[in-house]
């Protein structure tokens, strides 16, 4: 047919036919969109459905396998999603983390500041490791990347966004080493597994719960659950590669349900030797290099190190950091030295607005301990009593209030 005649009305006899054919053409875009939607919806579901068939294994055997793993070469992509129920730290980290930002005493490329950002949101990381001396960790940002390279005695941090370099001489302890196989203390993996299970004891259940596909590899799922109630932690799931014993995925589910609080896992993994060039780093031309020693010295000069030391001293002065309860329900009690708690209304310590702000952040509670304010996140709750004690724990609000009551 000539493509041009479709819009020509050729008289009444063919009018309805043409009309129907016209209408039929509009089906095409909808069909394309429908097929695409179905593909997007179905393909992941189909890919997920097949849990691999692996021989049965006990929790102890699996822990032995992890401990015995001597996989030293690895590279891959890791996706980390964190939802702790606290406001996004993306922008805040820069202003809160010591030494971050463009302040004269700091370097934006120092690892602590950057790793803070992982505490909220979703991040893509790339890791590579070749033995205990060479590791690389990169956090992929929007149009930028933060790389942490450990090669022999050097630890380099490079922030491409600000073109800043952080350099530290490590004493070979492998600061960036994330995937070193645990070695040493208990002599054999078997002992370690036994010890770990014994330590778990009657507060924790450790089971192998089926299998899963992680980054295209077959893995066992090790599930660690508190036996007591009252913890905010529902379960911790570790997916362990069936052939190498390398943990591939880590999921922390809160007991309140909903999305996992922490979900970190490989989306791609390769156990071959990574390219040697990925561990070599020379500061790019024009980049500002901050040496870790200088940073400390400078911080000392500006007094922040002294302050930190004083803070630490103050921590030691705490009248007993008591731990109430045991296992998963442990609650730490901290007495703020010389502190009355939060300024209460009418005490005149704080302007009304500040008071309102604090009230908005926490909930007022009362109990056997008196009254106080509870600050909640998805995992950790803290109770600040009016007489200046702080109770912190990964337990529910009720359990926290009860613990505070028994401690009185």
């Amino acid at each position, binding site marked *: 047919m000539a493509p041009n005649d*479709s819009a020509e009305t050729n008289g009444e006899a063919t009018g309805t036919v043409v009309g129907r054919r016209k209408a039929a*053409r509009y089906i095409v*875009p909808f069909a394309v969109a429908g097929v695409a939607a179905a593909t997007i919806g179905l393909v992941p579901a189909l890919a997920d459905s097949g849990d691999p068939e692996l021989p049965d294994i006990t929790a102890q055997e699996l822990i032995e396998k992890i401990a015995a793993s001597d996989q030293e070469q690895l590279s891959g992509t890791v996706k980390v999603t964190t939802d702790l129920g606290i406001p996004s730290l993306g922008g805040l980290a820069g202003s809160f983390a010591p030494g971050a930002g463009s302040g004269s005493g700091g370097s934006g490329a120092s690892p602590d500041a950057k790793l803070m950002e992982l505490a909220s949101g979703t991040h893509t990381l790339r890791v590579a490791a070749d033995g205990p001396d060479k590791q690389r960790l990169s956090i992929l940002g929007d149009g930028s*990347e933060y790389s942490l390279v450990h090669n022999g005695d050097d630890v380099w941090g490079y922030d491409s966004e600000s073109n800043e370099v952080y350099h530290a001489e490590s004493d070979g302890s492998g600061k960036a080493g994330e995937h070193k196989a645990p070695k040493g203390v208990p002599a054999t993996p078997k002992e370690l597994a036994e010890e770990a299970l014994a330590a778990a004891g009657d507060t924790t259940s450790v089971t192998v719960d089926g299998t899963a596909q992680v980054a295209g590899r077959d893995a066992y799922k090790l599930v660690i659950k508190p036996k007591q109630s009252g913890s905010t932690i529902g379960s911790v799931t570790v997916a362990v590669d069936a052939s190498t014993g390398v943990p591939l995925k880590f999921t922390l589910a809160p007991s309140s349900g909903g999305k996992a609080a922490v979900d970190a896992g490989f989306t791609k993994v390769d156990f071959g030797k990574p390219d040697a060039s990925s561990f070599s780093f020379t500061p790019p031309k*024009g980049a*500002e290099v901050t040496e870790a020693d200088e940073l400390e010295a400078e911080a000392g000069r500006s007094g922040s190190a002294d302050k930190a030391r004083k803070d630490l001293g103050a921590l030691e002065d705490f009248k007993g950091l008591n731990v109430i309860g045991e296992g998963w329900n442990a609650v730490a009690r901290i007495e703020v030295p010389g502190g009355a708690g939060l300024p209460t209304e009418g005490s005149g310590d704080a302007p009304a607005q500040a008071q309102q702000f604090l009230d908005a952040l926490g909930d007022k509670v009362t109990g056997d301990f008196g009254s106080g304010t509870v600050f909640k996140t998805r995992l950790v709750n803290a109770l600040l009593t009016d007489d200046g004690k702080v109770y912190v724990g990964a337990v529910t609000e009720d359990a926290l209030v009860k613990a505070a009551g028994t401690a009185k």
Partner: protein
Amino acid sequence: MSQAELTAVPVSRAPRRALWSLGILRSELATTFRRWRTLSLLGVLAAVPVLIGIAVRIETGDGARGGPGGGGGPAFLSQVTNNGLFLVFAALSATLPVFLPMAVGVIAGDSVAGEASGGTLRYLLVAPAGRTRLLLAKYASVLVFCLVATLVVAASALAAGALLFPVGDVTTISGTRIGFGEGLVRAGLIAVAVAVSLTGFAALGLFVSTLTDSGIAAMAATVGVLITVQILDAMPQLDAVHPYLFPHYWMSFTDLLRDPVYGDEVARNLGLQALYAAVFGSAAWARFTTKDITV
């Protein structure tokens, strides 16, 4: 006319059609690129990297480091002073969110509706090429404009960067170093990736253009859709739909500057653009081939 086509010798039909298609494409390209409007759009696009380069040069002329410590503004700005090649990346990331798609929106929105409002669409349809091929030629010429516009930005940035700043070995954003030659190859790849990023939006503009007979209305609507979708893409509450919005993976071209190259998001961007091109391309086809052309 259709009678004549049916009785024509079948062997000679295919080459004749191909020749016709080429002819339409050539005339489409000629009309697009000979317009003053197109040329001035390209001129504005070429001026953007020059302006960025001069601004960075003036700001860092006294030996200060480029960019604020935290690295505000478009990506790569802080590296421009050390390597002029980074002006290409900085210019592309500065123009991709607004300038480039706006120019493409103007060209795509005008492609059919402009002819209709100028009263020339009828005469185009008199040629025995058929509406489908005319539409394909229109889309092809818009795609050529996407590529030309991106290359204009990249080339002007490269020239300005080489004139104003030193060039040399390139440090990838992963911190590894590659030669200047490979850096140029990456810059070329990035320009192509940026051009491809615009194909989905170009198809959308073409569809809008078939809906109306007013060129201005089509352009305004296309650019309006662009701005709306960009705003939606910036709202954290709409996280769930973000992966399906056409600008969502636009900045994925920066992944080509990592070492090794991180291809996941680039691949997702290509898939998304292909989807938008298929959906809105077929919608434009359905509309255009069934439309009554009265003007």
